[in-house]
């Protein structure tokens, strides 16, 4: 079985309150994304990313891949899968800040599958998505999935 490694680099300058960092992907898919603590705990509308936004992107992409794989295995390859992931970070008494929740919404089109079988596919995809199982150390994962025609 191959072992696939992916890496990212960050340069941070200064302290937490006034410092800032730059995030670069090893593949070159994104480079020098600026982030800071003010942005991380702010509204998220400053044009800058944060660790939690990157986790949300990872979870949405991971679950979309897993659902595509499980639908195909069930003999019902989909036309289109839309996934939205919402990552919640909160301060937990005595434990500091934790990733406490990932709320995922899945919409599948053109899979030609019965509702019951679809539910099973979603469960298996959640169990099979490496990210879903990974973050369960501190977070709950909730999935709202619907078939759309």
């Amino acid at each position, binding site marked *: 079985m191959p072992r696939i490694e992916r890496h*990212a680099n960050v340069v941070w300058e200064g302290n937490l309150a006034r410092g800032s960092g730059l995030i670069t992907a090893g593949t070159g898919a994104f480079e020098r994304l600026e982030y800071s603590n003010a942005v991380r705990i702010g509204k998220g509308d400053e044009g800058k990313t*944060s660790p939690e936004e*990157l986790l949300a992107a990872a979870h949405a992409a991971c679950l979309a891949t897993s659902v595509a794989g499980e639908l195909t295995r069930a003999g019902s390859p989909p036309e289109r899968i839309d996934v939205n992931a919402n990552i919640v970070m909160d301060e937990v008494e005595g434990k500091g800040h934790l990733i406490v929740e990932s709320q995922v919404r899945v919409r599948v089109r053109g899979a030609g599958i019965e509702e019951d079988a679809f539910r099973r596919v979603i469960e298996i995809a959640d169990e099979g998505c490496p990210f879903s199982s990974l973050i369960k*150390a501190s977070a709950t994962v909730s999935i709202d999935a619907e078939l759309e025609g």
Partner: protein
Amino acid sequence: MATERSAQATWQGDLIHGSGEIHEAPSGAFGPLQVSWAARSEEQHGGKTSPEELIAAAHAACFAMALSNGLAKDGHTPERLETSATVTFVPGTGITKSALTVVGVVPGIDEAAFQEAAEQAEVGCPVSGALKGNVELTLDARLQN
């Protein structure tokens, strides 16, 4: 106070022949980004990102912030921290490891105090908290003053 961040992805087709797109991030900071099973599960990524790379980016970024905070609280504001995370994915098994590294330029700190701060940041950053127990976490910290 809770902070929420969301992202959206669309997949079209089956796993092997289909492909996906991570939409432009709600913050506007990146994307849209293309993903595919081949780019994710083979050594050759073709310049495409993957969930594992995004986790690596989140982890390296989270660790850098936590370390900057720990160092500054002890009176050693860092000039520069270069961190990286390498996430290992074994198709069929899952994500097995996240390896953190840091090279720090931190005026006035000694090696032992830097190592201790790095270890605390590794344990304390929220992304580590979500991953620990499910995945091997390693740390290689170097002071470069």
